């Protein structure tokens, strides 16, 4: 069912009126937002006549894309995660309503508040923030990630995520190999990287515990306005893992866009992020574990890119964007091999950038 059809919008308006207990709902804008290869995000502006939400509201409707990755959560699980992390104090879009009834739009969806700011990595890493502003943003990112990592498997509201993996790195290696097998991908470079990580997996869970990891916390997935992060988006991969997985993903070389010299997502220096993270969490970041999870980040993004390209190649969802993702895989492989060389030669220096 296409969401831009009149019938779909009428059903949505009717459902909204029931949820809000409002007499009249006027949809003033309902348009698809750019980005979102896995999920669809729609800007939804409504005028509510009365009730608790009376007035003009600016929301985002989030639903599945026509085809999605099997490893991403359902919208119901993502809604539960948003509720839990918002209660923890993490800057996430405030979840409002969830609808599992496919009679409304043909697929499950939820509504959340729309936060202001820019998310596009190419724009953010060209903002030219002053040194002070970049320091503040680096500290805020560290504080926010540590705040998220305070949530552990004992959190009842996150029971939907199931138990944590016994060993996060070995689990992730198995997931990557399974992903390659399902794609029937010929990826000797990635296989080499996975073997190399497997030999060092014992160093990838230094605290011996799992915490709640966003697992896609990187430039492009958080909004920035006036130099401040306003919201962390896209919680579809969230799960239990080693904290260094999130740090390695944010600091991965593939996510620095126009500013490869800045370790923290091309936006900030690592020292600022690290100081805030360690203060907030009371945990020291293990630099060797971080460097290994950076290698994993390159492999994981490469596997996701192959999965995206396969969606186009199979004809399931023709998309130039998805197809071009597959053409980026050699870039991740280059970063992966370069990191491996640096780590083996003892000249990895991302903590100093």
């Amino acid at each position, binding site marked *: 069912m296409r969401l831009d059809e009149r019938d779909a919008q009428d059903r949505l308006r009717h459902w909204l009126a029931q949820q809000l207990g409002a007499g009249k709902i006027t949809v003033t804008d309902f348009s698809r937002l750019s980005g979102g290869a896995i999920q669809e995000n729609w800007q939804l502006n409504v005028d509510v006549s009365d009730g608790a939400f009376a007035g003009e509201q600016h929301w985002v409707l989030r639903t599945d894309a026509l085809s999605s990755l099997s490893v991403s959560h359902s919208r119901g699980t993502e809604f539960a995660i948003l509720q839990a992390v918002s209660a923890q104090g993490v800057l996430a879009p405030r979840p409002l309503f969830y609808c599992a009834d496919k009679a409304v739009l043909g697929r499950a969806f939820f509504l959340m508040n729309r936060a202001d700011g820019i998310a596009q990595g190419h724009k953010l890493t060209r903002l030219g923030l002053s040194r002070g502003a970049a320091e503040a943003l680096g500290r805020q990112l560290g504080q926010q990630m540590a705040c998220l990592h305070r949530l552990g498997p004992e959190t009842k509201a996150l029971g939907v995520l199931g138990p944590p993996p016994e060993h996060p790195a070995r689990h992730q290696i198995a997931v990557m190999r399974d992903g390659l097998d399902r794609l029937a991908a010929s990826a000797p470079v990635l296989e080499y990287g996975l073997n190399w990580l497997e030999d060092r997996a014992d160093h990838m869970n230094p605290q011996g515990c799992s915490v709640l990891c966003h697992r896609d916390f990187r430039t492009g997935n958080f909004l920035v306005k006036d130099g401040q992060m306003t919201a962390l988006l896209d919680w579809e991969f969230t799960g239990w893992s080693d904290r260094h997985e999130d740090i390695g993903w944010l600091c991965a070389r593939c996510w620095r866009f126009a500013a490869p010299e800045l370790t923290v997502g091309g936006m900030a220096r690592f020292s600022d992020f690290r100081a805030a993270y360690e203060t907030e969490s009371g945990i020291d970041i293990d630099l060797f574990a971080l460097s290994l999870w950076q290698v994993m980040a390159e492999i994981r993004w490469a596997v996701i890119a192959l999965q995206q390209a396969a969606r186009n190649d199979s004809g399931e969802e023709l998309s130039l964007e998805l*197809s071009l993702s597959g053409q980026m895989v050699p870039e991740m492989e280059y970063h992966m*091999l370069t990191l491996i060389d640096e780590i083996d030669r003892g000249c990895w220096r991302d903590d100093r950038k």
Partner: protein
Amino acid sequence: MMGTDKSADQRALAGLARAVEAEFTASVMTALPDTQKYRSAMMRRALQIMTRQLAGGDNAADELATLTGCADFARLAVLIRQRKLTLDDAQLRAGLHAHVRARLAQTNPGFLARHDRGSDNA
């Protein structure tokens, strides 16, 4: 009936792809409104990759196949995962590096140039 000359066919296809890319860049992209800039840039990038791949052939795969003695990359991936490749680790890593560089020369030569200038390790 005429025989087929694969290399001549490939040269002709590469020439065709170059012509499409040039026409697209000169005539179509310039006429598009700003709202279509991103999508047209993606199309141009796709055309450039196709042009380079048609012109360059499969040299990247050939060299790794020669080094490892395995022309079937699906098989090579299995051998690496099972650690059954009888090749020194340093040799294999160097071969994989060269393979990746050759693929980057087709998919994103700008990336390679930037990293060769050392911007990644600044």
